């Protein structure tokens, strides 16, 4: 799997290259700013790009803007945006048109190598990976209006994992329950929130996020 990395902190960039190479990814390019990222994407057309939000020259949201451009110009390239803080506005901007092949994670998540690699693989193959923090923010925001309050604690956990972009099997593994139980929870959640049920993980994420006030 081919990866392009855009991260301005050299230490982090080198660490990521090492981690991903070790895990069998092919790192085509590791760059430090948005312009270099755009040309690296055009030159390599990777499966996925890891993009830091804050990069030179303004250190504000150039990474995010580059990510949105890349999603528009190269729909086949998965985009994993990662940052040291989460902004729900950024998440909704990223997910605005379609929730496929996109991720938004805190940089802290690289500490759990397996989870991080799993999220990256998901994004590369057209799936979604939203940071639990982002989902938490969105769910808190949607708490009052969206019927989230009527969910049981277990259902909330399942909803949160769904919104993060996990498949039923992934949710089952994370909560140490069987897939059948997960499916039952999912049906209940969609019924309580009044959403049409959906098989595709991506459509599910979008439905859930729309519902709780996100995209």
């Amino acid at each position, binding site marked *: 799997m081919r990866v392009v990395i855009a991260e301005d*902190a050299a*230490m*982090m960039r080198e*660490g*990521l290259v*090492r*981690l991903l190479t*070790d895990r069998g990814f092919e790192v085509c390019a590791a760059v430090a700013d948005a312009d270099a990222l755009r040309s690296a994407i055009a030159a390599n057309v990777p499966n996925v790009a890891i993009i830091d939000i*804050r990069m030179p020259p303004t*250190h504000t949201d150039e990474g995010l803007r580059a990510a949105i451009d890349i999603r528009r110009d190269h729909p086949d390239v998965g985009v994993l945006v990662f940052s*040291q803080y989460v902004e729900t506005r950024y998440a909704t901007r990223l997910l605005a048109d379609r929730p496929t092949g996109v991720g938004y994670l805190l*940089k*802290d998540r*690289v*500490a*759990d*190598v*397996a989870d*991080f690699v799993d999220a990256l693989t998901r994004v590369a193959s057209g799936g979604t990976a939203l940071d639990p923090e982002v989902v938490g923010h969105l769910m808190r925001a949607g708490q009052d209006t969206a019927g989230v309050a009527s969910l049981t604690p277990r259902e909330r956990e399942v909803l949160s994992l769904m919104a993060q972009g996990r498949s039923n099997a992934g949710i089952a593994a994370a909560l140490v329950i069987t897939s059948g139980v997960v499916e039952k929870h999912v049906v209940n959640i969609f019924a309580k929130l009044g959403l049409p049920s959906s098989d595709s993980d991506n459509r599910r994420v979008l439905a859930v996020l729309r519902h709780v006030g996100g995209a």
Partner: protein
Amino acid sequence: MTSDNGPMTALRAPFTTLALRRAVFCVVGVVSAAAILSVPAIVPALGVLILWATGAMSNQPAPAVAPVFLVLFPLTIALLVGLAAPTGRAMGAVHRSLADRLLDVQVDAPPPRLSKRISAVVSDGPGWRAVGYGLLKVPLAIPEGYGAFCYVFGLVNLSYPVWWPLFRNHPPGTRLGPVWALTPFGTIGTRTFAGTFLIAAAGLVMLLVAPWLMRAGTTLDLAAMRLLLGPRRLAERVRELQVTRARAIDDAAAMMRRLERDLHDGAQIRLATLAMNLGMATEKLGVDGPPPDLAQARELVALAHCGAKDALADLRDLVRGIHPPVLDNGLGDALATLATSSAIPVAVNVELPDRPAPAIETIAYFCASELLANAAKHSRATRIGLGVVRSGERLMLTVKDDGIGGAIPDGPGLSGLDRRIAVVDGRMRVHSPTGGPTRVEIELPTQV
């Protein structure tokens, strides 16, 4: 100006550029006073003109006169009232700029008018005060005019003996009228060359007296300007406070931004990398049994170890930048500690009977820190003296070095300090001639 009163100074006084500038100021003052005096003459003249134009002055009374007059009279009054304050403001601005350019005296502008509405224009206090200055200008112009007259005609009279031989070279026996010269006490005439020396002597006296007359006139004028053309005392203070408050808010916001940036690019990224390395190391060590890749795991743990130490160092620097813990023991200890980290030897002398307010200690500390850093960067000094003494309710911080001088008070570093201390009504004096030495004095209140 008053301390060096010698006979030479008195003789030199008329021939300085200051005297010339004062003379120009005085002449302009007389002209503006004349213009102001003419206003009361212009208004009735306009009235008469209008009456004449409408036919009121002709022998046959026109039927339209009474209504026209009834409309025009209040209109004129309204126009006068409406125009007075803006005119006053404009005239005040001209006089302030004259004082600035010619006398090097800055009188601050009053706060701007609140709105352009008629009510605001009519009730514009600073505008009316400026009108008051205009009225006062008439008596003020008298000593000014007198001084300028003495200056100009003193010079003219002094020159009589020079041009006498040039023009009075008629054949002997020619009968000529006397030559007249103007003095403050009337005109003097002479028919002889010797007489021109008398005129020249009168001119010299006038010239020597002129600077003092002009000085008296301009001093009075400047006092009136400060009183009537400047902002009111309270308004002045409010303005000052507004400015320093805005700066304090900006500084605080900038500091928070810098702090966020330092954390984001420093400790936070180091810790994220450290976590990543430990995560990788954990994988290399495996869940149980013999580690699958011990060599790599060791390397990663060593990397993480270095990262942790770097993050700690980063945080320590950051914390010291926010509030040096040693400052809790007092300014003396804090400055002594600061001095030990300076590349140039610093002699510290702190004499404080009791501790100033914590905010003042912090400001003093950061000023000292910035000044020491400046000295290390730019001064090429070999020793620095750092002193803090208490004088009354003020604290004096002095930093001096034996370097090359040339510090710019308006530069980004020093002006930043100035902003910081202005918030607590502190003052900074920078004495740093090219070639050195540099001496910076900062005066702070002991309580906020």
